[in-house]
C-alpha cells in the first residue's frame, strides 16, 4: 500500500469489513482516516511551520487561520504573504498568486474524470475542488482507483475536507506556540515534502506518460528557474508536459505498429 508510514498501516482503504458499511458516511470516514497517513502527517508538520512563518511575517492568528482554509495551497499562501508584505498592490498580489496556481487547473482536471459519475452535480465538484492542493491530489491519485466509483466522491470529501479542517485547526492552535524549530529540524521538515512527492508520484504512476512527465518536470523546473524565473513553473509544466505527452504518444504508436 503506497503512502503509508510503518506503524500506521491500516489495511486501507479497502478494509470493507463489517465496521465499514458501503454507505456514503462509511466511505467518508474511510477517506477521513487518511489523516493518519504519511502524506497527511508531513503536511501537518508543514503547517506548524507555516504558523511560525505567519507570526514572523506579521500576519494575525485570525488572518492565518482564514487564509489556511480559504487559500489552502501552501505555496500560494507563502507567495501571498511575501508579495503582500513587499507592499505590492492588490492587482500585483493577485497576479503573483494566480500565476503560481495555474497548476491547479490540470491537477483538478485530471482527477475529475476519475471521481465523477454521470449524475454528480457540478456544484458539488466545484465545492470539492477547493480542497485540492498537491498533497490531496497525490493522495487521491494513489488511492481513488481502489474505491468503487459510486463512493469516490464521499471518499475524496472525507479525506480532503478533513485534511483542510485539521490543518486550519493546527494553524490556530500552534500560532504563537512554536516560534521556530531548531535549524536542523526545520531543514528536515522542509525536506520531507519534496522527497515524499518524488517517491509517491513515481510509485503510483499508472501510465508511462506520468513517469516521462516526472523526469522532464524534475529537470525543467530548476532549469527554467535559472532561465526565466517568473514563468518557470508554467514553461516547465506546460512545455515539459506537452513534450512528455508527445514522447509517450510516439512510443505508444510504435508499440501498436509493432504489435500489428
Amino acid at each position, binding site marked *: 500500500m503506497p503512502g503509508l508510514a510503518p506503524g500506521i498501516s491500516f489495511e486501507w482503504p479497502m478494509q470493507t469489513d463489517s465496521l465499514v458499511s458501503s454507505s456514503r458516511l462509511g466511505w467518508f470516514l474511510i477517506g477521513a482516516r487518511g489523516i493518519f497517513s504519511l502524506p497527511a502527517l508531513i503536511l501537518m508538520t508543514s503547517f506548524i511551520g507555516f504558523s511560525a512563518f505567519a507570526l514572523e511575517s506579521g500576519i494575525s492568528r485570525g488572518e492565518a487561520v482564514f487564509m489556511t482554509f480559504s487559500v489552502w495551497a501552501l505555496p500560494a*499562501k507563502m507567495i501571498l504573504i511575501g508579495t503582500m508584505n513587499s507592499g505590492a498592490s492588490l492587482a500585483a498580489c493577485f497576479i503573483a498568486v494566480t500565476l503560481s496556481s495555474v*497548476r491547479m487547473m490540470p491537477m*483538478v482536471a485530471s482527477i475529475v474524470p476519475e471521481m465523477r459519475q454521470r449524475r454528480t452535480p457540478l456544484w458539488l465538484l466545484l465545492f470539492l475542488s477547493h480542497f485540492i492542493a498537491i498533497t490531496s491530489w497525490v493522495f487521491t491519485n494513489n488511492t481513488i482507483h481502489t474505491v468503487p466509483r459510486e463512493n469516490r466522491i464521499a471518499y475524496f470529501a472525507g479525506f480532503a475536507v478533513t485534511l483542510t479542517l485539521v490543518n486550519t485547526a493546527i494553524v490556530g492552535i500552534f500560532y504563537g506556540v512554536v516560534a521556530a524549530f531548531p535549524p536542523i529540524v526545520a531543514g528536515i521538515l522542509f525536506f520531507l515534502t519534496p522527497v515524499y512527492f518524488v517517491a509517491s508520484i513515481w510509485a503510483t504512476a499508472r501510465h508511462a506518460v506520468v513517469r516521462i512527465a516526472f523526469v522532464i*518536470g524534475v529537470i525543467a523546473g530548476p532549469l527554467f528557474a535559472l532561465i526565466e524565473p517568473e514563468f518557470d513553473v508554467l514553461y516547465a509544466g*506546460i512545455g515539459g508536459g506537452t513534450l512528455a505527452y508527445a514522447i509517450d504518444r510516439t512510443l505508444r504508436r510504435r508499440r501498436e505498429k509493432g504489435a500489428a
Partner: protein
Amino acid sequence: MIPADLRTWVFIVLAGWIATDLWRWLGVIAGNRLKEDSEALYWVRAVATALVMAVTAKLIVFPTGTLAASPLWVRLAAAGGGFAAFLLFGQKVAVGVVTSVLILAGLLLATGSV
C-alpha cells in the same frame, strides 16, 4: 481606499482565495468534459505531473528557510540517494522518505552547514 485593518482580509479573499480557486473551478469545467482514457486526459495528466514535479524539484534545488544555507550537493545527494533506495527496495514510499532524511541529517551535521 481600503481601511488599513481590512487591507489584509481583502487581499486574502481576492488575491488569495479567488486567485487560487479560479483555477480549481476552471479545472472542474475542463475535467468534466474529459473522458477517462482519452488522449486529452493523457496530456492533462502529463502537464499536471510536470507542473507538480517542477515545483517539487525547485523546493530541493532552491529551498527557502534554513536549508537555503546548505550546499546543493547535500540536498541532491539526499534526494537522489533516497530515490535510489526507493527504487531498489520495492518502491516503498516510506523507504525513500526515511533514507532521504537520514542522508540529509547526516550530511548537514557532517558539513556543519546548518
